């Protein structure tokens, strides 16, 4: 079980979600959810496939608009920003995609340089080089620097995807299923990486997963998304001590079978 880091600042709510609703046609995915995430905290969002976890963080990053309710990120109402303001905000958010979303036509190095060179024009070539090497070292993939994404394994792609977002040193990290489809050892490495990012940069993170090992290892708190609502939010042990059958079964299937 993870120990709660000392630097979580409960006076500063970084992400605040209020009565958020989102439907696709007749498919009511999010049905009024509420959540506050504190500065420096790792918040895990748990839920079965198709419950709208990806939709939730896409709303946080401004990729989708909610139908009702509000999402405040760093005090800004995401759905009501103009392009400029949204871009300003996005520079402070790192988004690690479920399917990595690496740029196919670019090498690993170019994937990492690309956002850096565009947003930090004052950096010298050497500084960019250094940042790229550091980011790759952090995810343990220094040797892949000249490879194309198509030449990497799924797990490697995922780690490069995380490196690409870390390189901008965002204040907020959104991880969409960082360990899905990875072997237990690589998963463990990713979990360590997420914790290291939190400890080193005091990043606020939202980690989406249905992997309870991951939730336990990285989550300061977990929130369980069920039928479009958060049914339980709290520390891992507290949440899974609950009597709620649905939460219990989620736990049992994950660990027993």
């Amino acid at each position, binding site marked *: 079980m993870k120990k709660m880091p000392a630097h979580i600042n409960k006076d500063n709510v970084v992400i605040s979600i209020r009565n958020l609703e989102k439907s696709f046609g007749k498919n009511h995915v999010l049905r009024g959810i509420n959540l506050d995430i504190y500065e420096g905290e790792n918040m895990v969002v748990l839920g079965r496939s198709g419950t709208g976890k990806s939709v939730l963080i*896409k709303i946080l*990053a*401004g*990729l*989708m608009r909610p139908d009702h309710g509000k999402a405040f990120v760093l005090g800004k109402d995401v759905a009501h920003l103009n*392009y400029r303001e*949204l*871009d*300003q905000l*996005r*520079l402070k*958010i790192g*988004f690690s*995609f*479920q*399917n990595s*979303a*690496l*740029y*196919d*036509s670019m090498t690993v190095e170019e994937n990492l340089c*690309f*956002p850096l060179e*565009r*947003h930090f024009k004052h950096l010298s070539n050497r500084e960019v080089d250094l940042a790229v090497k550091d980011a790759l070292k952090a995810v343990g993939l220094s040797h892949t620097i000249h490879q194309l994404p198509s030449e990497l394994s799924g797990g490697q792609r995922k780690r490069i995807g995380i490196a690409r*977002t870390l390189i*901008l040193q965002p204040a907020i990290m959104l991880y969409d299923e960082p360990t899905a489809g990875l072997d237990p050892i690589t998963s463990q490495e990713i979990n360590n990486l997420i914790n290291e990012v939190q400890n080193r940069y005091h990043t606020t993170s939202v980690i989406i997963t249905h992997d309870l090992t991951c939730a336990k290892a990285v989550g300061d708190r977990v929130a369980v998304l069920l039928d479009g609502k958060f049914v339980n939010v709290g520390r891992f042990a507290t949440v899974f001590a609950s009597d709620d059958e649905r939460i219990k079964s989620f736990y049992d299937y994950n660990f027993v079978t």
Partner: protein
Amino acid sequence: MGTTKKRSRHYVVSRQMDQFFFEIYAITQFAGRFFKEVFLPPYEFKETVRQCYNVGYKSLALVSVTSFVTGIVFTKQSRPSLAEFGATSWLPSLVAIAIIRALAPLVTALIAAGKVGSNIGAELGSMKVSEQIDALEVSAINPFKYLVVTRVLATTLMLPLLMIYMALIALMGAYLNVHANEQVSFVSFFETAFRSITYLDIFSSVLKSLIFGFTIGIVSSYKGYTTTRGTQGVGIAANTAVVAAMFLIFIEEMIIVQIINWFRAG
């Protein structure tokens, strides 16, 4: 984000026709967005140049071969009709007019629609379904500007150049054939050929190529950018990009020819 099509059971005309007009409307909007964003900074010079190079590089070989063969074949096929009137000396003028007014803009556009249009449709389509477009967006890079504006500019600027290149190669082919049969010299062939060409001809062909290039860029980008339904959608995007671009090119050709003829007469 893609446009979502509502599938209601009541159609204004029929399902296909409604969809067709919806598509035209959506493409027009897409083009409107292009004009809004093309003038706003930041300008993607480097990427635009890279795309121009791509467009030229991808179509050059095919345009070269096709135009050369077209020049030869067209000359060969026209000869008997002119020979009937003993007017084979008109061959250079006839061929030049046909190539510059009609063949060069149209054939270049069709080749580019096939090669470049399918490529843009597939490339943007796969970027869409693998969330690379979302990835650009969350890293505060305007994907429309970076991906669409650069490609549309590239096709629009490159098509007139390709068209002129195509016309010259086709005339070379025509010259070789005329030279072999009528023993006309290089200088006299091109002198006769260009004497029959007016500035209006060249202007209208360049204009046509600009419009065709714009059409190819917009339609194929639209198809790629709005791809849905996973990898299957990528194939559909590439395919429909070519079909829709070619269809619009033919319609535009008919309209422009009408307008130009009106100018010519007036």
